[in-house]
């Protein structure tokens, strides 16, 4: 066989890596935004939970800051900004290493 045409058979690990890469990184990247959207939807469904929008009702610090929809959004943001980027980066480097070996 002509060596200009023939290529090596990709290893099982390589093929798995190529197949796995998109959805894993995508799921990790989506977890935070889905949580944020969940908090936003909750806030729209129950706007009276967010006291910042209706200051006339009064209330203490806990009523303003520690409301369910706001807390869900904060958790989503924390995951999106603190955890997800490093995981996606490590997934990419793992797959690069897999494809090189």
């Amino acid at each position, binding site marked *: 066989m002509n060596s200009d045409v023939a290529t090596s058979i990709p290893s099982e690990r390589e093929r798995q890596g190529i197949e796995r890469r998109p959805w*894993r990184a995508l*799921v*990790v990247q989506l*977890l*935070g935004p889905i*949580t944020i959207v969940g908090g936003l939807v909750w806030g729209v469904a129950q706007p009276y939970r967010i006291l910042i929008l209706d200051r006339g009702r009064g209330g*203490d*610090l*806990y009523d303003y800051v*520690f*409301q*369910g929809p706001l*807390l*869900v959004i*904060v*958790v989503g943001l*924390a*995951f999106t900004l603190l*955890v*997800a980027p*490093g*995981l996606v980066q*490590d*997934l990419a480097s*793992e797959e690069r290493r897999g494809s090189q070996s």
Partner: protein
Amino acid sequence: MVPRAETAHWIAASVALFVGLVLIAELVVGHDVFHRRRWRAYLFPSLVIASSVLLWVITILSTFSTMHLLAHAVWAQAALAAGAVELALVRGKLSRPTWALVPAAALLVSGIAFLVHEPNPWLYSRSAFLHHAIGWMLVVVSLFPLGRAIQLGRLAWRTGYALTFVLLAVLLFADRDAAPIFGRFGLGGP
């Protein structure tokens, strides 16, 4: 300024939701990739231990009944033990998978404490309903770490364990100090 019970429950729900997201992420990327950065490996045990410290604070503050005091002390102690074991597993001080029996016992004991310290029946109010629901949920989901101890690699146990925290967060976020079980649709409550 001491927060109301529902506020404390919502803060606990936030921690549970974050833990759930972290465990789901670990499940998706795999153990090796997740533990590549040391701080990530220590994240779950640290959150559990920090939660136990917060639970001790709540134990000190919620002295309005002996049962509440005991229940919060049991949760704090159970979380501390589970967090310590998870930390020792990450550090490599412990290696046997059967140590997952400790988180299983912690969930079981926490569930029983939820059920025992709620004096009202299921349909009395939303708070009572959620205490019963969370209690039974924790009793049932203690099977997940138990299964993990017996069959280490089984995906179903790890998935169930991760989703446990998300479900716990949903139930805790639904808590109100005084409300009918289904809000405007009624049933129970003042």
